[in-house]
Structures are given as structure tokens and as C-alpha cells.
């Protein structure tokens, strides 16, 4: 019936209600879905990382949302966060995965363990690593980490069980053996630890930490030879980092230049170049403007003595705006190693002009100038270095040597004094200082550095002989003045230093005679006589001393001996002797 207003009104109402119900229902479904959708970490600001990281995170989130939050997408996001140390965000993702179908994988648990360890939560780390062990018992890195975490949490027994179980399937696994040796030592089991470590080194000679621990044990037990051998063994390059493919995989998501650089150094230092170099490539890919890859490549080339390549890398690092204070010293070293001193000088002059107050540049530039023999430039630069770092040993020594050669010894002495203050073992500075004071007739100032230098020197060497000669001269000079209360003491030191040298003996005899210590004078003269048995003046002096000691008969014997040794042409001496032998003796006799 067309046109019935009452009927169309109720139909409109019904349709309106149905539509409203549908809309409300859709809204309800939407709200329910939103409420139950995983809460991904909010996007943040990642100012300390390259922009590529932000884009990667945004992209990973979008994908996860668009795909309906599948576990693989959430997992990828978790690892992206974790690789770049956004651990809270990573944990939020793992929390989602825990509730998702399939739950967490062994690798997820391993990564959770890694976060817990980073946060210092050993108990949580142990729980996660035990989960890994349940499902992936063959993953060695996790088992080693579990053992370490147990040990660090104070559960040495639990750690020992873990390491022992590793050895059941992997005999002589080096890290497990080393850790068990540590536990043996904690329990007082020296012998067991030694046996274990020796077995370890036989199977794995690259385990230098094991050698270091053995060296310490042997040293403690007084087994010095063995300790020395182990010490030498321990000084080889550090042992390789244990394989951890899951962490390596995590690092493929890393955008953190510092983290990659540190890992590069770790691999490089332990000789794992194949693992190290790709990390530098990644750094360069992430931040093409960063100079760090070139700096580290240069550093690694220099360590491998490929200085030509090192220089090229350092130059690239500088061209990229790298910090010259960090790069120039390394580059100068490589240029010096290549014998390209003028290139090194040119480089350093360039950056010195830009940074005249930079201590690292000053030091490197002065080093180049010294090697070039450019004393004028070196002097200026070294003085500037020492204004800023007055106690730098190499700079003080270099300047001292230049100034010494040019006769500016007073300033050289100041440099040498500084070296002796900071270096207890430097011999050259002490030798030069001793010589300086000797030339100025300052024996008391010469003696301390010369004594210190001799103590550091090996007997029988030319240096030792030279030092001995100088110190002897200083002692004699200090002693012969007689002014110091220790004068005789100094002469005694000279005699002890060189008993075959008559000089100190003669001075001592004279000094003691002047002081009327005739017995001491006689003792010195007798030693002198033994050195020079045919020297008549010694017998003359000895006789005089014995006479004053109240031994006239013995004195006469020596005078007569002297007469026999005196040549007929030596009338003065013969007369003096005759005065003593034949004539009555008065005080005038001895004048």
C-alpha cells in the first residue's frame, strides 16, 4: 500500500536501529581488537644513532602492524632494539612473543639472558640461559655463559657442574677448563688447578689467560723458573673470543658505531681479522661521514706493520674531518716507520698551525723534528710541550740532549732533574746530571744521581765503568775538601768502589793525617803501599805517620825503605829522608 506514513515511519525506525546496532557492533569489535593487539614500544628519538636506525625501527613496526603482529616481525623488532641497546623496548617485544603462539625460542631466551646480564640481573640471566640449555643444549656459548653467570652469582658448585657437563661432550673446552681451574683454586686445590691448566695449555696453547694464571700460581709457590716461562707465554696475543653466532647475528642489526668499533677492536686484538674487518665495513655503511673506520683501519694496518696502507687510511680519516689530535700522532708514527720524515714534518706543521696548543700534536711534531735532527724546531716545540706537561720524560730527555750538545747545560739540568723525579729507573738522565754537577765542582749534588744510576746498571758494561769513574771522582772531590763531616766517609766509599785506584787512598791518608787520626792514615798508606810498592813517597809518608803514632822504630824502617827506592837524582827526597834517618827529629823535620 503505497503512501502509508505510519508504516514507513516504523520501518525507518527498525532500519535505523539495525544500522546503529551494526555500527556499534563494528565499533565494539574494533575496540576489542585494539585492546588485545600487542602494545609495541612507542617510537622514540634516537639522536645518538644514525638516521637509518630510526627508519629501520619505523619500518619494522609498520610491517609488524600491517602483517597483524606475527611473531617473526615482533622478533625482528626485538632484535633491532636489542642490538642497539634499547633493552626496555626489546623486553617489551619479548613480552609480546612470550604470549604469542609458539612462545619464545631458545635464541630469544639467549637474548633475554644477554639483556639480564647487561642489567646485572644474574638470577634472571640464569633462568633464561637454563631455558636455552633445555632446548638447545648444543649451543656452547649459552652453556659457557650459564656457567659464568652461576659463578658470578656465587654458586661455584652450580658453575662447576655446568662446566663439567660441557667437558663431557667437549673435552678440553678451553673456557670451561679455565673456569674449573679457578674453582679448584677457590677450594684450595692448587695441584688440581695446575694439572688442569697444564692440560689446557697443551690442548690450547693460545689460551694466554691460562698461562697468566699458571704464572701467578707458580710464582706464589716459589717455582720461579716455571713462573717465568708462563709469564712469557702469557704475553702473546690474547686468546680468541669464543664463537657466538647468535650474538654475531644480533650485531647485523647494530647501528651503534661505538658498539661495532669496540667489537672490531676485540676481534682484532685477538687476531680474528676475518671477523673484525666486516664490522668496519658496517660502520662505514652506517655513517659514511664517520672517520672511525679509517682510523681503525689505519691503526690495524700499522699494528700489522703495513704502514704505507696505514698512512693512506689516516689521511682519509683526516680528510673526513677526523680529530687531528687523535689521528696525527698515529700517522706520524707510520710515516716515521716508513722513513718519510719530511712528510711527517710537513703533516705535523700543517696541523700545528691549526692547533698550536694541542699537546698530542706538539708531542708528535717534536718527535718528528728530533728524528729529523732539526734542533731549532725541536727546541721550540719541546719547550712548548714542557710548558704544558713539565714532567713528560721523552720530551725532557730530548730537550736535555739538544741543550747539552749546544752547551746550554743549565737548562738541560732542569730537564734532567724532572726526569729523575718521575722515572726511578732512568740511567742516562742521572749520568748526565752527575756529570753536570761534577763539572761545576758540586760533588755533593753529583753523588745521589750517580749512585742511583749505578744501582740500575749492569756491572762490566762500558756504561757502568763510566759511571763508576764519575762517582769515584765525586766521592774523592767531596772527601778531599775535608769540609764535610762525612768527608772520610766519602773517601771510604770511593775506596770501596775502586780499591785499585790510589787516588782516594792518598786523599784519605792526607785528610786523616791532618786530623791527627794517624792510625787511619797509616791504614790508608799501607793499602797505598800495597798498590804501589815501589813508590818511595808512600814509604816516606807512612813513616811520618807511624812516627806521629808513636812508633819511631817502624817509622825508621819505612824511611830506610824509601831511601832504597829513591833514585840518586832525586836530591830533594833524599835530603828529606836523610833528615829523618840520620838527624835528630824535630817538628821542622816534617815541614
Amino acid at each position, binding site marked *: 500500500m503505497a503512501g502509508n506514513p505510519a508504516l514507513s515511519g516504523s520501518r525507518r525506525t527498525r532500519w535505523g536501529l539495525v544500522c546503529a546496532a551494526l555500527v556499534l557492533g563494528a565499533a565494539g569489535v574494533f575496540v576489542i581488537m585494539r585492546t588485545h593487539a600487542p602494545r609495541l614500544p612507542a617510537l622514540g628519538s634516537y639522536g645518538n644513532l644514525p638516521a637509518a636506525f630510526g627508519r629501520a625501527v619505523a619500518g619494522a613496526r609498520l610491517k609488524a602492524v600491517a602483517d597483524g603482529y606475527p611473531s617473526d616481525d615482533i622478533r625482528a623488532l626485538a632484535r633491532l632494539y636489542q642490538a642497539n641497546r634499547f633493552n626496555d623496548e626489546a623486553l617489551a617485544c619479548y613480552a609480546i612473543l612470550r604470549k604469542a603462539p609458539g612462545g619464545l625460542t631458545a635464541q630469544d631466551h639467549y637474548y633475554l639472558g644477554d639483556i639480564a646480564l647487561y642489567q646485572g640481573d644474574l638470577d634472571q640471566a640464569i633462568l633464561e640461559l637454563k631455558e636455552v640449555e633445555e632446548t638447545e643444549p648444543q649451543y656452547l656459548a649459552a652453556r659457557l655463559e650459564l656457567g659464568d653467570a652461576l659463578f658470578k652469582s656465587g654458586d661455584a658448585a652450580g658453575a662447576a657442574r655446568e662446566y663439567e657437563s660441557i667437558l663431557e661432550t667437549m673435552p678440553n673446552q678451553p673456557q670451561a677448563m679455565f673456569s674449573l681451574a679457578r674453582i679448584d683454586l677457590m677450594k684450595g686445590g692448587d695441584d688440581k688447578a695446575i694439572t688442569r691448566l697444564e692440560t689446557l695449555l697443551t690442548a690450547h696453547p693460545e689460551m694466554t689467560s691460562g698461562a697468566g694464571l699458571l704464572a701467578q700460581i707458580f710464582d706464589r709457590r716459589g717455582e720461579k723458573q716455571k713462573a717465568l716461562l708462563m709469564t712469557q707465554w702469557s704475553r702473546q696475543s690474547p686468546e680468541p673470543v669464543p664463537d657466538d653466532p647468535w650474538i654475531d647475528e644480533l650485531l647485523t642489526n647494530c647501528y651503534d658505531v661505538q658498539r661495532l668499533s669496540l667489537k672490531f677492536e676485540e676481534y682484532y686484538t685477538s687476531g680474528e681479522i676475518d671477523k673484525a674487518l666486516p664490522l668496519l665495513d658496517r660502520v662505514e655503511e652506517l655513517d659514511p661521514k664517520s672517520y672511525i673506520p679509517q682510523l681503525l683501519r689505519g691503526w690495524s694496518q700499522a699494528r700489522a706493520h703495513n704502514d704505507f696502507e696505514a698512512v693512506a687510511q689516516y689521511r682519509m680519516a683526516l680528510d673526513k674531518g677526523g680529530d687531528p689530535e687523535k689521528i696525527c700522532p698515529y700517522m706520524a708514527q707510520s710515516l716515521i716507520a716508513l722513513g718519510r720524515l719530511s712528510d711527517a714534518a710537513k703533516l705535523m706543521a700543517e696541523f700545528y698551525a691549526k692547533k698550536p696548543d694541542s699537546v698530542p700534536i706538539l708531542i708528535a711534531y717534536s718527535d718528528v723534528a728530533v728524528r729529523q735532527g732539526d734542533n731549532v724546531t725541536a727546541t721550540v716545540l719541546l719547550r712548548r710541550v714542557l710548558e704544558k*706537561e713539565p714532567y713528560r720524560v721523552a720530551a725532557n730527555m730530548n730537550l736535555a740532549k739538544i741543550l747539552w750538545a749546544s752547551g746550554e747545560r743549565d737548562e738541560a739540568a732542569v730537564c734532567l732533574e724532572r726526569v729523575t723525579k718521575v722515572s726511578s729507573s732512568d740511567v742516562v738522565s742521572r749520568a748526565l746530571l752527575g756529570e753536570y754537577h761534577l763539572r761545576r765542582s758540586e760533588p755533593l749534588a753529583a753523588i745521589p744521581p750517580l749512585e742511583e744510576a749505578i744501582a740500575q746498571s749492569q756491572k762490566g758494561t762500558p756504561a757502568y765503568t763510566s759511571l763508576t769513574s764519575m762517582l769515584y771522582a765525586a766521592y774523592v772531590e767531596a772527601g778531599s775538601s775535608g769540609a764535610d763531616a762525612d768527608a772520610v766517609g766519602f773517601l771510604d766509599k770511593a775506596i770501596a768502589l775502586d780499591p785499585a785506584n790510589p787516588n782516594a787512598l792518598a786523599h784519605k791518608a792526607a785528610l786523616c793525617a791532618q786530623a791527627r787520626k794517624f792510625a787511619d792514615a797509616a791504614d790508608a798508606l799501607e793499602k797505598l803501599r800495597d798498590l804501589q810498592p815501589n813508590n818511595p813517597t808512600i814509604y816516606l809518608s807512612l813513616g811520618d805517620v807511624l812516627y806521629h803514632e808513636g812508633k819511631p822504630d817502624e817509622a825508621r824502617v819505612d824511611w830506610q825503605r824509601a831511601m832504597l827506592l829513591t833514585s840518586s837524582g832525586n836530591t830533594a827526597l833524599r835530603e828529606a829522608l836523610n833528615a829523618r834517618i840520620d838527624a835528630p827529629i824535630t817538628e821542622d823535620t816534617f815541614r
Partner: protein
Amino acid sequence: MKRLLCAVVTALLVAGVLVFFLRARRMPASAQASTAAAAGERRVLQKQPLGPDFYASRAIGKPAEGLPWITDLLVVDLDGDGLKDVLVCDGRLNKVSWIRQVRLGVFEEQDIGQPVQGPAHLEVADLRGTGHLDVLVSSMGVVPPDNEKIGSVVVLENDGTNHFTNHVLLDNVARVTYVQAAHLTQSGRLDLVVGQFGYIEGEIRWMENLGGGQFKSHQLLDLPGTIHAPAVDLNGDGKTDIVALVSQDSEEVHAFMNDGNGNFQDRVLHGSTNKDYGSSGLVIADVNQDGRPDIVYTNGDGFDYATPGSRPWHGVQWLENKGAGKFLFHRVGDFPGAFSPVVADLRGTGYNDIVSCSGFNDWNDPDAVSLMAFENDGSEHFTPRILAHVPTHLIVVKAADMFNDGRIELVTGAFMFYPPYDHVSRVTLWEHKE
């Protein structure tokens, strides 16, 4: 509506009373552990909030000559005149000096004893029973890495007239970084705890005082890397134990429990599996003032790389002593290059704050922090408060009431090891402005 209002007001009142009583329970009794506030010392509440304006700094002692290497400081009243002094280790000039507070706030410095090579740590004790404090010096031989046996333990013997004479108690050993006197046996004589960092080889030993200046060594640990090894009764049994922070790839906190007769049992309390953790300093203090000594330590050493500097895992943590041998790890906060933890109630609130300085930060960044306080809210939740950005390269900080006025001052020492060197200092006193 009225009923609703009444209910709300009543609820608020009840909550307020509850909060009051809860906080009242947290008010500390006299502290027994070694914080900067000794038992009985009064504290003056500071209204000024912790921050860059909390302290004013000035250099004390001799001016910096070149780039100083201050390796340790010790605040102590060395001459017993009632004024606190500062003892200083200079790792470059190989000497120990005494910055003496001659009058309140006035300091004069003099060298004491003969040179000591690579001095790294200072303690004082009346080792010989003379009534005067001798100075114990840990000698590394040289400060930069070296595995040679060039370490020694040196005591500067105090004759009571401000003259000190060196006496070597131990030498030709792995580099020594810590020595402290403590009663480790029933003998009544002060024994020595000795931590030896070494480099590839190192150890911890204790030296039994046999009397007559004679000591006998007993080894405790065969590992390099000891930073600090303070003696403390960790479990309240009346016997002095030893706690040690060991770095060099180990990165562990050890406790050596004493049976009272010098027999020690080693156990690890906590450690990091990160070999580059950079353990840098440890101190014993009752952080939460429950009567049990806790352990506070830092990790901030970032030297051993092509590019020295900070690491993101650097910071401060404490191990809470729960009793019965249990320790609970708490991270206090991140702090690049953290060194030298100190526990002190900086504002007089009654709660122990933690202070640390930075020895290895990115000093090219003007925002890099060199001195940080972690402020305790009373429940051992710590909020970082920046105290200073300059001077830089601070390797040691100590806290003490320098002027006996109930307020805590700080003293820092700088170790200028790598550039930039734009903000050089040597020994700096951080005092209150008013």
C-alpha cells in the same frame, strides 16, 4: 554527596597518617658503617637542592703543574689538631703530599716522606702503636700498564713531629693498588690487606703482623685486577672479613670470610660476564642504614682501547647486605666513566646519597658530567643530580665534614690522561656557598 565528601576526607586522613608512620620508621638510627657521617655527628639540613649550584669549587694545595696524575686522596686529621687534612698521591711526580688545614678553610701543602714510585692508594693507621698515624702507601711502581714485579707496600712512619720516614714492608711484587691495616687475627697487632692489580698476573694477600716489624704473607686470590680490598666485618660475627673488587676480565666482587684466625674462605658475591665492564672503585657503607654494611661499586674504566673514553654500561651499583650471607644487586644509575663511589648524606636529610666522579668521559662534549650525586629518596631509589661538568678527568672523590659544621664537603683529584685538556685541575675542594 555529603557522605561522599566525608568518606574522601577520612580516606585522605588515614592515608596521611599511614605515610607519616611509614616515613617515621625509615628515619635512621645512628649509622654504624663507614659513611661520611660518623655516629653522633650532627647534620645540617641543606635547603639548596642538589645540582650544579650546590657547591662552589676551589683549588687547594699546590697549583697544577702541567697535567696532574692524582691517583688517590684521603681526608684525615693527620696531626690530630681537630682540623681535617687531605693526603694526596701524585702518580706522575711519585710522591705523597699532605695538604694540611692550618686554620679553618686555609690549606698548605708539603711533601711527606721520600718519593714513592707510582703511588696509587693511601690509608692511615697507627701501625707501630706510637700514638701517631702512619701513612700506608700502595705503590704500583708505574701507573701505566706493566706486568713487571715493581709493586711495593711502603709505610711513611710518623715521628709525631710532622716528619715521615719511608719504610718498605714489601717490594718486588705485582703492582700494589690497595693496602689497609686491620686486625685479622686475635694477636692484637694490626695486619695488612694487600691488593695487587699487577697486569697479566696479580693477587690479593694478607700480611700477618708477627711483631717487631716483621710480616708474613698469606695469599688469598691468584688473579690480577684488584682495585680495592677493604676490611670489614661483613656478617657481624666480630671477625674482620675482606671485600675485594677485581677487574681485568674477572669483573667480580669477592668476599673473603674470616674465621677469626686468619683463615679466609673466598666467595664471589656478584660479577659481570662483560669483560670490558671496567670495574673502577668500591667502598663499604651502610647505604640503607639497617646496621649491615653494604657494598657500593662503580664501573667506569675505559682506558684500554684505541679510543679511550666512556662506555654505555658504565655506572654505579650497590649490593644490599640482606644478612645470612645474601647480597642483592641494585643498579644505582648509569654514569659514563664512573669512579670512586662515596656514600654521604649530602643534604642532611638523614638518607645516604651516593657520589661518584668521572675519569673517562667524552670530554669533547660540554655536557659530559664529571661529578654526579645520586640522591636517595629514603627508600634507596636514587635520582641522578649533576654536580659539575668541569673540571674534567676526575678519578677520585672523597666526602667529609671538612669544617666541622655539620655539612658535607667534597674533595676531588684529577688524572689528566688523555685529551682534551681544556679544564685542568689537581686537587679541588667543593664547599658550600654560604
